[in-house]
């Protein structure tokens, strides 16, 4: 599988990253190698195995629908880069 400059630009765009021309070339090369490495997994024979998205044999991990106290807002807002004390403040969002 070949990773093109266009692929890198697309992923950078989705990730909201501005990359220079040189960076795009570099990442294209790196990602090509990473994918080639990961593709080794395709060589494993999985005939007769059930398809699964998970490594653990665990399922139905549920929680009861019981209200627990929420977090203190002041503490939450301490994690916000910018807040007015009651809400997160962000640059204007225009749709």
């Amino acid at each position, binding site marked *: 599988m070949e990773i093109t400059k266009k692929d890198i630009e*697309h992923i950078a*765009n*989705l*990730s*909201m990253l501005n990359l220079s021309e040189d960076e795009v070339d570099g990442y294209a090369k790196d990602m090509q190698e990473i994918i080639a490495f990961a593709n080794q997994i395709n060589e494993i024979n999985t005939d007769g195995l059930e398809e*699964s*998205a*998970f490594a*653990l044999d*665990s*399922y*139905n*991990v*549920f*929680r*009861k*629908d*019981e*209200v*627990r*106290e*929420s*977090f203190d*807002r002041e503490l*939450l*807002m301490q*994690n916000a880069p910018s807040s*007015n004390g*009651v*809400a*997160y*403040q*962000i*640059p*204007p*969002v225009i*749709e």
Partner: protein
Amino acid sequence: MEYEVVIGLEVHAELSTKTKIYCGCTTEFGGDPNTHCCPICTGMPGALPVLNEKVVEYAVKAGLAVGAQINRNSKQDRKNYFYPDTPRAYQISQFDLPLCINGGFDITLKDGTTKRIGITRIHIEDDAGKLVHDTYTGGTLVDLNRAGVPLIEIVSEPDMRSAEEAVAYVEKLKGILEYIGVSDCKMQEGSLRADVNLSLRPVGQKEFGTRTESKNLNSFRAIEHMINFEIQRQKEILESGGKVIQETRRWDEATGEGYAMRSKEDADDYRYFPEPDLMPIKLSDDYINNIKENLPELPERRKARYIEELKLPEYDAGIITSSKALSDFFEEASKECGNPKAVSNWIMTDIIRIARENDIDYSDLPFSAKRFASLIKLIDSGSISNTIGKKVFEDMISENKEPEEIVKEKGLLQISDESAIKEVVDRVVAANPQSIVDYKAGKDRALGFLVGQCMKELKGKGNPQIINRLIMEYLK
């Protein structure tokens, strides 16, 4: 050229669980900004979500109620996108293994025909937070109280061909969700909202045209207006030789216009992958059957009961049962006054009208079923005429009083005193000899005119049956 409209809907319904989908924060509507939040629903690194079991139960219930198949094996997936109302920068949704697939139901249209609308899938996911414009700084404020509230997304097949069909579909779906109690479906509060996918194609063409997606419609009126606007817009583009652009659009009900939000071409790459923090869901036959056996009476069954037992017209029965609140109102008022036919007639005209005019849900009508039943009783007992009843109905809303009180205060009791009425009839007939001639010449309208004149003299309070009878005596 003639075009065919193709509409598919994605309806989001907030589930009425007590807590959010992945944490124990309350789902209560309102509340001070960011007070129903914790590290899980604000997307703090390292916080581990745990699925609320009720969310699975409610989604399965919804699936069974719309005749869908339940997937025995299901999982959740990450849908990646950047938007500031989604603190994790991904939504947890379901991609290839939703809880429910392949359902559908019949909708009834105004002309009495029915049509089946297919449901492709129902999946669970978490709601986003709310962005509020900050007039003080010109920036945007983020309130994450709603982030993590459980949603089901119900995706229809592109089976609808008009605004009427789309509205009928959402009405029916809303009714079903209300009956099974998985969502309060309050459209004004955003707990039920629809995304409308719409395209046009020349009649006879098999392939779909390019579609647009209009997001977050939260009233039936908005859905209807938006669809008619979008049909016209696409038609004009196609007729002038242009191409419809695939895009996400927003509808502004206040101005009656839709506008493009963002082009979908490159934004629509969500890179779904299995959510590693949440284990798969496996449902047993026992689990599913148990939910199935405990489903409450659904609108279809209630409708059949109204037609058979109460002899309501099919269309009326369909409208009334489409909303659980309205249907409950009907049952309670009918029981109270013993005249289901009258209650149904009032619902089909005045009650639906005032709900639409004021954009209120039937659960929030400005009078109780009991109070409304008193009005019917006043009419049925002959204390007031139907016409005066309509006036009392309006006053009942504007003044928030019992109908008996209004009738008493305003002196609206019907005049059934025959001699008093006869006096008026004599006078009116004497003053309008031409009407008698006209009536005898076959002009039936003359009767209506005379009755109207008598009513006018009696300030609308005359008993119409008596007036009619007395005038007929002259006309014989």
